[in-house]
């Protein structure tokens, strides 16, 4: 009997998009520090799966639990441990980097100064620039900052490497590694699993 505590678990999960059943009978568990990579061709249901894991859509069958509690029964504090970033960053174009980060901090109840965070993500020079003027890499890093500032333990990332150059990709991989090292969990949909593969990675192939 394993003493490992699983954070994220799915049982007999079935996911549909519209009327089409994309995923059937998916069972998996992720412990602290574990990464799951979701791979598959376009349209195979990677985004739909991530949305179900985030609790944005209900599964057709089965259930997803976080710390043993079904997603729709989570208390607000546990809910805010889940972080999801889809194809869009969730950043307001008219806000500056700082304003976006501060908004997400206040939203999840974590106020404070974020200079260190911005410096770690090389955003200090652009901290007062509106997001509309940022490059793809800078936006991605800002998105990452908002994820971190919310105190999220679970990272659900939908193809986070898109539109990033080599530097951007290695930065992201580094931050992901740091997150996992700190005891976080992550599920990442990607077309390039090799860049993120590490020991103990769970592969979900659709």
């Amino acid at each position, binding site marked *: 009997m394993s003493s490992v505590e699983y954070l994220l678990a799915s049982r007999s999960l079935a996911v549909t998009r519209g009327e089409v059943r994309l995923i059937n009978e998916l069972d998996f568990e992720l412990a602290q520090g574990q990464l799951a990579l979701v791979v598959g061709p376009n349209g195979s249901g990677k985004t739909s799966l991530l949305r179900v894991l985030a609790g*944005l*859509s*209900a599964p057709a069958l089965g259930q997803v639990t976080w710390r043993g509690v079904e997603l729709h029964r989570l208390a607000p504090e546990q809910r805010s441990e889940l972080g999801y970033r889809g194809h869009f960053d*969730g950043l*307001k174009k008219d*806000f500056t980097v700082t*304003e976006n980060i501060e908004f*997400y901090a206040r*939203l999840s109840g974590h106020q404070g100064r974020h200079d260190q965070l911005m410096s770690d993500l090389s955003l200090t020079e652009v901290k007062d620039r509106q997001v509309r003027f940022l490059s793809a890499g800078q936006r991605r890093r800002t998105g990452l900052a908002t994820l971190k500032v919310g105190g999220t333990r679970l990272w659900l990332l939908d193809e986070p490497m898109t539109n990033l150059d080599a530097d951007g990709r290695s930065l992201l991989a580094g931050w992901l590694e740091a997150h996992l090292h700190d005891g976080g969990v992550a599920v990442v949909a990607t077309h390039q699993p090799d860049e993120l593969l590490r020991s103990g990675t769970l592969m979900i192939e659709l």
Partner: protein
Amino acid sequence: MTGFIVILERDLKLAFRRVSELANPLLFFVIVTSLFPLALSPDRLLLQAVGAGVLWVAALLSSLLALEGLFRADVEDGSMEQLMLSPVPLSIIVLAKITAHWIVSGVPLIALVPVVALSFELPAQALWVMAAALLLATPTLSVLVSIGAALTVSLKSGGSIIGLLVLPLCSPLLIFGARATDLAAQGEAVAGPLYLLGALAVFSVSLGPLAAAAALKVGLE
């Protein structure tokens, strides 16, 4: 409660980043109102008789225009998903957005309508009643249009049917508001319709956001 304030502040801040866009519904209101004398006749007695109604219909349409995109920007950049995932209940988020919108669009409209009403030669006591009635009716109006916006949030051509969905539901507002204005112009008591508008405001503001939140959840699945 803090969640409400956070979102309210955010939306207000964002609105003021695009100040020029705030004027559009107000301009629309003025243009629509001016079309009536052109279409009907500039006869002063006629305009005085139809003035209240024309203004209310124009205000209704202008609010429809202003609010139909309430959720669109957030849905398009992924912010709505993030808001839905936050610990703040979705109905509170909706209420905060509606409130921000009302402050930025509704209040200027309430101030503008009596000014335009002067051009229809409505008597002074009617102007006050009209402003009061609008103050009470615009919250309900905002809630109803936001429900329409939430119902159509995932539709590409949602904007074209939102009027069909929402305008029939707005008829009581029109009836109570425009008729109250007319009654005031005739010097009669208007407490009744104003109380009714107030009651509708309380009712819709407390329950409407729940319907809008439910519609958003389903629409964005």
